[in-house]
């Protein structure tokens, strides 16, 4: 039984990545890269993040990022009071020419998002039907013991890394990383993205309640992006450390 399983595994290793996995992988890779770059350009137009329903230059920020000349620019006319009280409501005119490349950055962001969503849905459907998700991505219950987890952490800390065959079966941490991206980070980033849309939240206001407002959703969207970038750094590092040529060959040509 154990031998048969091993044989199965070896057969699958030879098969490496199936064609649909390879196609989905590269479309998703291009989409995520485009989304990351345009996302940063969009963030540069207003590098302040907030918590709650609203946030702007006249309300306190959660934090600000020094990533464009808009960072703490201070170009505001004297505020005019609308409503006095403990929490005064004011208005102020901006007197500063901000950095704003959102015309193309927003449209390209959404174009890439369409590619991401359509490809991801295809990937999930194909992975569900063909068993790729169950077989290769979702960790089995018995794999999730502290001992096995620790063992895999130790393996990852040893250099040089063992050469990989290119393709499944995946290691435990590898499975957890892919599982996290496919089932947690990407869905979260898409849904928080939609929670910033005035038309989507008019149709589904429950999204505003789930994330505590569209500005909270924007902040969560940003942290999901950070998580995705961290994953990408580790992912690419692992590809390089476990045999760059072999791994690229497996993901491009599938053998």
């Amino acid at each position, binding site marked *: 039984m154990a031998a048969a399983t091993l044989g199965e595994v070896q057969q699958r290793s030879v098969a490496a990545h199936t064609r649909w996995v390879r196609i989905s992988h590269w479309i998703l890779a291009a989409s995520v890269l485009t989304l990351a770059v345009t996302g940063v350009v*969009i*963030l540069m*137009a*207003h590098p*302040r993040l907030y918590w709650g*329903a*609203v*946030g*702007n*230059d*006249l*309300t306190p920020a959660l934090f600000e990022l020094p990533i464009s000349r808009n960072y703490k620019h201070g170009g*505001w006319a004297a*505020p*005019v009071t*609308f*409503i006095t009280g403990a929490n*005064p*409501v*004011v*208005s*102020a*005119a*901006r007197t500063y020419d*901000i950095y*704003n490349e*959102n*015309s*193309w950055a*927003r*449209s*390209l962001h*959404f*174009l890439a998002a*369409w590619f991401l969503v359509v490809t991801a849905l295809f990937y999930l459907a194909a992975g569900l039907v063909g068993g790729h998700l169950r077989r290769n991505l979702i960790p089995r219950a018995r794999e999730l013991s502290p001992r096995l987890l620790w063992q895999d952490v130790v393996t990852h800390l040893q250099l040089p890394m063992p050469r990989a065959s290119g393709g499944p079966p995946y290691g435990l941490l590898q499975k957890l990383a892919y599982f996290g991206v496919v089932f947690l980070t990407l869905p979260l980033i898409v849904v928080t993205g939609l929670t*910033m*849309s*005035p*038309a*989507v*939240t*008019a*149709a589904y*206001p429950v999204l*505003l309640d789930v994330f505590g407002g*569209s*500005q909270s959703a*924007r902040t969560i969207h940003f942290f999901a992006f950070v998580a995705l970038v961290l994953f990408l750094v580790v992912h690419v590092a692992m590809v390089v450390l476990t045999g760059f040529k072999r791994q690229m060959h497996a993901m491009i040509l599938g053998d």
Partner: protein
Amino acid sequence: MNKDRLVFSRRKLVTGLASTSGLLLAGCSSKNLPPTYGNVLRMGDLLTYRAFRMLLPAQSLAREYAHHDISSSPAVGNTNPGDSQQETFNADRGPLYDRLRAGDFADWRLRIEGRVARPASFSLADLKRMPARRQITKHTCEEGWSAIAEWTGVPLRTVLEAAGILPSARFVNYYAYDDIAEGIDMLDALHPQTILAYGMNGRDLPLAHGAPLRMRVETQLGYKSVKFVERIVVKDEFDDLGKIGSLQNGWAWYVGI
């Protein structure tokens, strides 16, 4: 009998499918949609527009907030059409705006033109006599910030109906006193929360926020809520509004996202 019904329903199904795809194809006619100019970004915008119109329930109301949710509101873009230093200053309408403002907008008129049965012009007093709508809504700027304010005004629908929209009309375009113009489709134009606002946070609309009248389109981004509205033009066909519209400046026309 049973068979007949089966045939009938199958025919119905086929007809239904055919007419649905016909609808999609009809919608593809370029007169009814924003042009892409062969630009891939505009194609993406078009996909978003069509997908949103197809997938989202029509005319859902944007969330309305409580009075204590009102936040501070930055005033960005043009804050005075009479100021020749502003980027979108118009040499003809700018000075005109200054004169109207000096007269407390008593001589100001909003013109309704194009595909309406009775082209009309309304004074501020005329508009304030129409049934008003007050809404506390969130302004979402493409830059990334947002603000909640209370807006008082007359539904665009009321004004359009007063002028009599012709059945063939598909788009509503609006022009400002500076070189800004925008447009929306009839679905957003007739949306109950799309209003011509003359009041903000319980007082007359301040200069920096578009005095005396601005558009409020609550289901799209802030730049569709044009300030200093001068004139409304109802159209049968899509009009990109040339150099003063969003499209030719590289911005998406539909921004429900």
